[in-house]
């Protein structure tokens, strides 16, 4: 067996350790992104033998047409509702369960599991359950509303309501996940800091939250925000199973439009343009996390 000098051997080990992952990353992530980026400037259709360069036409269509704008604004509205509600509720529930654990640990654990259930469950299957609950005449939601003297609503087929219904389901689905992250963050806050706050006169619930809990949860909150935002931008399952983007595109979202254009109408070029926009948004979110906010929440 040939003996390589030590430095060569170490170099080979490095290449062997890093190589496979790098190769996979290049083949399965970077290459497809480049191909999609190229396709987004063409009128390519799946199965076609040729394509023509059309420049920015796909992007013009997305940002210029009513339908494209609809998908964009729907997605933004959905995200604008889901992020604050899901993060806020997650924090409130986590703070509640964290306190509950002091005097009723068993109950706290049960509730923790209950809140986490929607995260563990398959969203498509859960959508069927939601569909039954939201049925205009037979559903529990409307029956309860009527029993309480309210007006029954067409939750999934009223243009003015449908997006909010989907947002509510989105919140229901993500609160549990955010709660678990916040619980971990809360458990990591040193008890000494709360004692110090108490001695310093910041012992009331409100001032203790602003003096210790909220600043100490900074890194957790940032992570939760980014995860929630990414997931909210990706909303697809509920749209696909419950509304198909309807009625009249009132619940059409970016990823659902991408699916429809690409896999129903085979407009690969246009679908690629949507993908690139989606990709740009997620990239921006990640950059915000790494560059701007991370420095501020880790208190360097």
């Amino acid at each position, binding site marked *: 067996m040939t003996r390589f000098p030590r430095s060569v051997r170490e170099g080979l080990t490095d290449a062997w350790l890093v190589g496979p992952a790098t190769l996979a990353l290049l083949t399965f992530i970077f290459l497809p992104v480049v191909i999609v980026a190229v396709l987004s400037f063409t009128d390519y259709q799946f199965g076609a033998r040729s394509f023509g360069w059309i420049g920015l036409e796909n992007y013009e269509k997305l940002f210029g047409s009513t339908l494209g704008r609809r998908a964009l604004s729907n997605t933004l509205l959905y995200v604008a509702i889901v992020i604050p509600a899901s993060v806020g509720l997650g924090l409130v529930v986590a703070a509640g369960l964290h306190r509950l654990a002091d005097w009723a640990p068993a109950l706290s654990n049960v509730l923790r599991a209950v809140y986490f259930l929607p995260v563990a469950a398959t969203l498509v299957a859960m959508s069927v359950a939601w569909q039954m609950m939201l049925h205009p005449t037979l559903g529990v939601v409307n029956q309860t509303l009527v029993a309480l003297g309210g007006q029954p609503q067409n939750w999934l087929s009223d243009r003015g309501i449908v997006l909010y219904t989907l947002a509510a389901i989105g919140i229901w689905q993500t609160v549990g996940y955010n709660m678990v992250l916040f619980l971990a963050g809360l458990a990591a806050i040193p008890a000494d800091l709360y*004692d*110090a706050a108490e*001695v*310093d*006169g910041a012992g009331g619930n409100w001032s203790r939250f602003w003096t210790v809990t909220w600043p100490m949860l900074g890194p957790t909150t940032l992570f939760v925000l980014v995860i929630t935002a990414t997931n909210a931008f990706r909303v697809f399952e509920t749209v696909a199973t419950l509304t198909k983007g309807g009625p009249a595109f009132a619940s059409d979202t970016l990823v659902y439009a991408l699916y429809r254009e690409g896999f129903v109408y085979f407009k690969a070029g246009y679908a690629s343009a949507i993908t690139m926009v989606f990709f740009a948004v997620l990239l921006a979110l990640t950059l915000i996390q790494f560059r701007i906010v991370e420095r501020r929440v880790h208190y*360097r």
Partner: protein
Amino acid sequence: MNSETVLELREVTRRFGTQTVLDAIDVAVREGSFTALLGASGCGKSTTLRIMAGLDRPTKGKVLLNGTDVADRTAHERNVAMVFQSYALYPHLTVFQNIALPLTMRHLGAFGRLPFAGRLAPGTTDARDLIRRKVAVTAESLGLSDLLHRKPNSLSGGQKQRVALGRALVRDPVMFLLDEPLSNLDARLRVKMRGELISLHKRTGRAFVYVTHDQAEAMAMADQIIVMIAGKVAQAGTPRDLYDRPASRDVAAFVGTNAINLIAPEDGPSFFEGNTGDAVIGIRPEHLSPANDGALGARLETAEFLGSETILGLRTDQGKEIVAIAPGDYSVPAPGSEIRLGVAADRLHFFDPASGKRLEREHVR
């Protein structure tokens, strides 16, 4: 109650579930004194401090501050300052803001504390000036003036310790409670901070209560040491009391740089002139030194030369290990040699073998 007593615990008991952490302890802290709560970990000294601070409540018993029962007053209302082992600085606030926090909580309303909008709140300008002046004075006295805009994460351990002290000092509290404040520092810095704490105590004139497991720290700084063992006060007294007249075998074992030699009757026939009966004899190593006509003989096993003194590890014929201290110029014989050791009779301590309590010489049978 003595009019000079600033804080008193009366028959304070604290249970966590079925576990009794403090068992009816009585503690009195005089105004202007430096009291050390000394004990091994788990003896209840930190719980005692937390009860004094108002961070914990006694299951039974009373906490009196200047003669008033303060059972339902919060730590802030008691106006006691506390310094934590971990420093417990707020990582998101600058040094200035950390030191200023007790003052901003006191002088500014909820609106006035807001980062930017707070400046618009009426009447806060004077309060802000006052806070700025007080923080500047405190920071100056601790040598922190150049660090006011730094965040705690960029400070060294000693600097963090000073900020924690500054936060305690700035509000002029009725007393200072310190929970092992020096144990996270390296040895050299610890000795330096010891001196600074003593001069700080002199300067403020307030009572200090200092929790530590390090007897050397307690002996060096305190004028009253309260030794706690298993949730009880084993002895309270001056450092000299504790050293010269330990109330029990356990206290004797805890106090002193070199662990005391405890020789039970079963360790062999009495080595000392006079009848010592069945009492356990305690001799501090520093009172046991080589002497040609010494009463006790033992074989040398180890010798640690420390410069000013040499610590001798010996074994008696009965197999009992004992430690003696020889002067630094003592020429150590070869290991295995027989050495005669002498002891001054008035340096002997006697303890009851069953209860471990101190026996006065005249009571030794």
